[in-house]
């Protein structure tokens, strides 16, 4: 059974200037012990998706579709009960995601007290053990410190300790390393991999960095302007990207292998979601666009597990011609 199933998730935000659909018919699944990456430029609906799974979207959001955790439908009540137990999340901003008024140890222990009914002393003991587990040196001393006394990487480790304290079935990591420098980034991601192997937790790894995806994900969902552009096993996606947007992103991914980190970029910007282009939302920026692209491209399975939403896929034929 999958740890997480998302089927036809739609998220609308009602704002003063009208309603915008931030996520449109998104579907994916993650099996226990596997990592699914969600990739896309800023504003394409990644965080909204994560918050929808936890049930923490802002009040002006309206969602539809089905989300199931280990086969159980996640109603708002079920989300409330699952948060912090079966369902955990770490956020992009380690500098601000911890409460400045409580020590690191208190913030880890709090979850244990709540969910496992531990008394304060046992909870603190376990919290210190968790901090050791996320490789915080001198965990007992660090547990007594406040967030401002810890570095960004250390704080993110504390966040991971909080998230994993109650052994969740699903961990959502929303750009967990974006705010950290490169070496710390690698350490944190390696730590997440290791903990995932030990606990069998399923991971949804949200990132805009394809380099991270290649090394840490089993499957990838590429999102563009709230829709799935392409979805494939990681190796498949890197070997044979089919969607023009994915190809553009691959061009934009920093390539450390070629020594000079190259950063090409896709021209243009993401569309205004209040007023998106008809049909394929990538059309205004797509070098392959045709008249047909004014109609919505359906998500089609080109190869087993490799789904693409593009009128011109497979592109091999196009490029060869």
């Amino acid at each position, binding site marked *: 059974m999958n740890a997480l199933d998302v089927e036809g998730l739609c998220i609308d935000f009602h704002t003063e200037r009208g309603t915008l659909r931030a996520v449109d018919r998104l579907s994916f699944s993650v099996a226990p012990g596997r990592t699914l990456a969600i990739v896309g430029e800023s504003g394409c609906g990644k965080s909204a998706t994560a918050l929808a799974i936890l049930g923490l979207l802002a009040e002006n959001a309206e969602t539809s579709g089905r989300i199931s955790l280990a086969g159980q439908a996640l109603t708002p009540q079920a989300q409330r009960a*699952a948060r912090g137990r079966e369902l955990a999340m770490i956020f992009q901003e380690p500098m601000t995601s911890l*409460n400045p008024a409580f020590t690191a140890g208190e913030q880890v222990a709090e979850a244990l007290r709540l969910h496992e009914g531990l008394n304060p002393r046992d909870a603190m003991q376990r919290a210190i053990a968790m901090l050791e587990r996320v490789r915080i040196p001198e965990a007992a001393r660090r547990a007594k410190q406040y967030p401002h006394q810890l570095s960004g990487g250390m704080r993110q480790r504390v966040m991971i300790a909080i998230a994993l304290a109650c052994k969740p079935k699903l961990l959502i990591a929303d750009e967990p390393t974006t705010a950290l420098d490169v070496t710390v980034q690698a350490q944190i991601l390696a730590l997440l991999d290791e903990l995932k192997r030990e606990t069998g937790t399923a991971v949804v790894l949200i990132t805009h960095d394809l380099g991270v995806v290649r090394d840490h994900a089993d499957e990838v969902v590429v999102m563009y302007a709230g829709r799935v552009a392409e979805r494939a096993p990681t190796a498949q996606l890197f070997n044979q990207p089919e969607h023009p947007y994915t190809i553009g992103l691959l061009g934009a991914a920093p390539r450390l292998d070629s020594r000079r980190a190259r950063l090409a970029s896709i021209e243009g910007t993401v569309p205004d979601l209040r007023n998106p282009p008809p049909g394929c939302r990538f059309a205004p920026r797509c070098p392959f666009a045709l008249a047909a692209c004014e109609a919505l491209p359906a998500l089609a399975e080109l190869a087993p597990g490799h789904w693409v939403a593009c009128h011109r896929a497979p592109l091999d034929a196009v490029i060869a011609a």
Partner: protein
Amino acid sequence: MWLWLLRRLGQVIPTLLILSVLVFGLQQLMPGDPALILAGEERGDAQVLAQIRAELMLDRPLAEQYLHWLWRVLHGDFGFSWRIRMPVGELILTKLPVTFQLAAMSFIIGVVIGVPCGVLSAVWRDRPADWAINGVALFGISMPNFWLGIMMILLFSVQLGWLPPSGYVPLWEDPLMSLETTIMPAFVLGTGVASVLMRHTRAAMLGALSQDYVRTARAKGLSETLVVGKHALRNALIPVVTLGTIEFGRLLAGAVLTEQIFSIPGFGKLVVDAVFNRDYPVVQGVVMATALIFVTLSLIADMLYMAINPRLRTA
């Protein structure tokens, strides 16, 4: 910490000195000759007047009067009241507990009403309950204390006969009576404090509730009560505590009118009587004591701020 304390004291001393000069100087501008007032029936007798002036050093240059006064104050002696014939220090010490009791009660009322209302109106932001709380707070701020005081006396003393309209019984003589005599003025003063605290708590809570750590607390599975009452409030209270301390200082110093209305023999009444009687030593003593209380309270406020703000405590 010690260095900080020293620096703070370094700021305090010049402030107090300048204030004392101002008090001394401004008194000269007050119309009316204290010697004339003190002479009473014998104000026609030039010899008596001269004697009074000599006794009170009023015939000396102002600078000499000031230095003489300052010298004694530095030795803990605030002089003698010209009118009541009591040492000013003693006078202050007998009046201070009265005002302190009133201020403490008002403050408790203000905190108990103001802080929870601020929290609730932040949680219910832009909904009818929020508008209602804000409306009442605006009312509380704009309503003159003397008017509210008189209305309360009319209702609770004259109409219902539940509470004595005025007067004061010390706490240690008859605690219940004491509360009865002070509850109305405390409420009058407390409403103002509640309104101020409510608005600041609301603003601080709105700021705290929009922080990422609140989202983290929710993601941990905490109930909304814990999210608001623990994670957000703990941070929101940091600025509110400082403000609260200042409000307490304002209560100690600023209850003049309310004390008059309810005939509470506190600080306010003391200074008003002293001004009317040109009882300069009392005026000077009260002003300096008030300033000292203020300075001490703001020092306490800063120390509290450091104590509850881990960023400053451990920096």
